């Protein structure tokens, strides 16, 4: 595969991370806080 395709795959992967970590953090917030 062309080199730049890997750049975009990496791009998509890193941009998914705020959602993964954000979800984990939100789940750790206690009710009512």
């Amino acid at each position, binding site marked *: 595969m*062309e080199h730049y395709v890997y750049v975009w795959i990496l791009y998509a992967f*890193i*941009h998914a*991370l*705020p*959602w993964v970590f954000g979800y984990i*953090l939100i789940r750790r*917030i206690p009710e009512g806080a």
Partner: protein
Amino acid sequence: MAEIQWSFVIAFIAYFAVIWIVAHRVATRIRTYLELSVGGRVVSYLAFAFLISGTFISAVSVFGGIGTSYEHGYASVVGWALAWMVALIMALFIGYRLRRPAAPPFTLPEAMKTRFELGKRRSPIQFIAAFWGLIFVGLFNMLQIKGFGLAMETITGFDFRIAMALYAFIVIYIGLGGYLSVIRTNIIHQFVIMAGLWATVLFVLSLPQIGGLGGLHAEAAAIEGSVHVESPYTLSQGALLTFMGAFPLVLLLNFMIANMLAWSAPFWPSILLGSKSVREMIKGGMLASLLIAVAWIAIPLIGIGTRVLMPTLPATGRYDTDLAFTLLIRDQLPPSIGIVALLGAFAAAISTSTALLLYASLFLVNDMIGAVRPDMTKESMFKWSRIFIILIGLITLALAILATPGSLLVGASLAFAIAASALAVPITLGLYWKRMTRAAAYTCLIIPPIVFLIPVLIYGRQLEGYPLFVPPIALAILVALLLAFVVSLFTKRAPEESTRPFWEWGGG
């Protein structure tokens, strides 16, 4: 001097007028320091997402990002876009602790006082942290103003000093409305940024000599050589589409690490303090990552497209890749698309500048003057913050007019690295390691920035001839980590009250 392009000037005046009306409504309504500094802490996730993304995408991203993509291709994505996304994730983790106290601090340096010098009337830590903050926001703001002014002059023939003065005027005016004004205007700017970037991408891809996305990559793969005789970089064929471009590894790593640490540039964590709650803050950050992603897909495409259309910079001009977008607008785009593109770049610059100016003033009043005169009332802080917004705005303008232009992305990485070398370790460990002590915080605030600045002063910003494999910023961070652990373990444990606000929900 080139003839003035009045269609551009009129479009700008119209946009200024819209922003002025929005800013004016907020500026005349706010009454308290709480509203000015953190918007009353009522900001929900949607507005917060626009605040983050508008502040995130600056003149540095647009002119610098396109310029670096022009010279190095997709390496700009690796060294900047991805690194900044890591920084956004880090910021969420920092905000997760920082926004937790029942009575949250107004700024990051104030939070550092709570963590390390609780109960002390005058806090030198708060003062020093704010000092590094002020250096960062000052440098970064100069880059925004200069980036905009030079582009305006090159494209429209309008004197850059007048353009910069108008720019400073509107930034100051937005600043007077504080946090809420920055948010309201950022929402408008965000749409203009997207329109500018994507109109350019679609137009460039539709050109017959480019021929769509496939054509762009095919053309780009054939490009080699330097963009200018003075450029230290020679691109090998096909390198425009690789991870590295023509960068030496150590330099790219240096930029990458500095950008990953961008969250510790203290206005970032400070912005998080205005959100309604920790939950809203994190949701806002998640949404912002999408908005930022949409912009950063366009940036490398524009840069690479410009390289195909204009393989080298004009030989008679100076070596400055930040000019790539400007020259594209002036020479290749029709005025209708050019106006939208330049307005987008302008919106990117101004949306960041306003936040920077607000925090320059808050760091000075809340944290530096506040550390010396702790009895200041919130009323006088409100008054003085607004006075300093005007003064700092004017001083930054004067310095930006006098400064010699350098590459925006390199300048930005330098500014990020200075702030990060001083603040990244004490903030992270301070919020995640109870054992970190006050003495360790002092050591980290003072020694690592010196470790970083010495090689930069010796070898220059481009690090030509730098002998080590470990880039200066990584060296500074390693030193900071080592000092933090050693000094903490040899000094007295911090009292329980100083860690409680950031560990317990609604504590402190």
